[in-house]
């Protein structure tokens, strides 16, 4: 039983939209105390650390070295964007070298 693509697309779009707005809407009911604010501020730190940790675990030596280089370069260059772009170059070169 397959429905037409536009119908399926509309269903998928509504699921994606629901995810985008639901957390935002529900959060309006939560009074933002300093404790809640500290939790909200820490959330991206945890997510970013999680993304990085998973990439290191799933990747090989090239990925681990590139991400370590990003951390070092961010501290040296004081620009996380420049460090991230250089990290991509590092991993491309290491993969090209067969690492």
């Amino acid at each position, binding site marked *: 039983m*397959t429905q037409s693509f536009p119908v399926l697309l509309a269903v998928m779009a509504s699921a994606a939209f629901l*995810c985008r*707005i639901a957390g935002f809407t529900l959060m309006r009911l939560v009074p933002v105390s300093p404790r809640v604010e500290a939790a909200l501020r820490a*959330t*991206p730190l945890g997510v970013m650390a999680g*993304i990085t940790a998973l990439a290191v675990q799933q990747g090989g030596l090239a990925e681990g070295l590139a991400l370590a280089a*990003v951390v070092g370069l961010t501290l040296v260059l004081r620009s996380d964007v420049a460090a991230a772009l250089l*990290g*991509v170059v590092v991993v491309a070169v290491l993969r090209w070298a067969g690492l």
Partner: protein
Amino acid sequence: MSGALFSLDGFRRGARDGVPLAVSIFAYGLGFGLVAAQAGFGVGKAVATSAAIYSGSAQLAAVNLLQTGEATAWALFAAILVINARYLLFGATLQPWLWSAGPVKAYGSLLLLGDANWLMTMRAIRAGEADRAYLAGTGAPIAVGWLSGTALGAAAVSVLPRPEALGFDLMLPCFAAGMVTAMVHSRVDLLPVAVGAGAALGIFHLAGPAAAIIGAGLAAAAVAALMHRGEA
């Protein structure tokens, strides 16, 4: 109350910061276009999918399901809900800042919400960004990159190099590593970082990558709330 700043200046600032990310999202879009074309999607259908769902991981799962030929509307709905559950967390963390722009601007900005520009906006908020148009600004170049990448990938499947060869698949982790390094200002910040990394690795084995990312965010939030001292 819609008194918060929402200006063209803030939008431009966000757009400028979003450009480096848009380059990687363009490459990721190429990858999705490629997969969609191999699943029998034409350019129009691939771009419509990218515009309607606007989330790479959810789209890849949806294309996989559709390819089996047995995908029901409910199965697709549930799959996207599960994969994109992290957006609940993203929206919740933006709420106190974004809501003061008023509902139309806030919900409109959320249409352009993605992993990369959520990270970028949270970093900007921490650095004192007051202009609520910043979020939509970061989203604009990323959306352009995503849709044009999808179109090109679907149209030119056979002649493109694989994005992995250029290292683009590691772009989001690179940005995450850089931003988390830049955002750690004191030893207090190191605890949610360590807890997030540990939670992601632990949950990944039990429940896969989508749950791991949500778990990392929630664990970091919980430990920060617990450690918070009563002052101010």
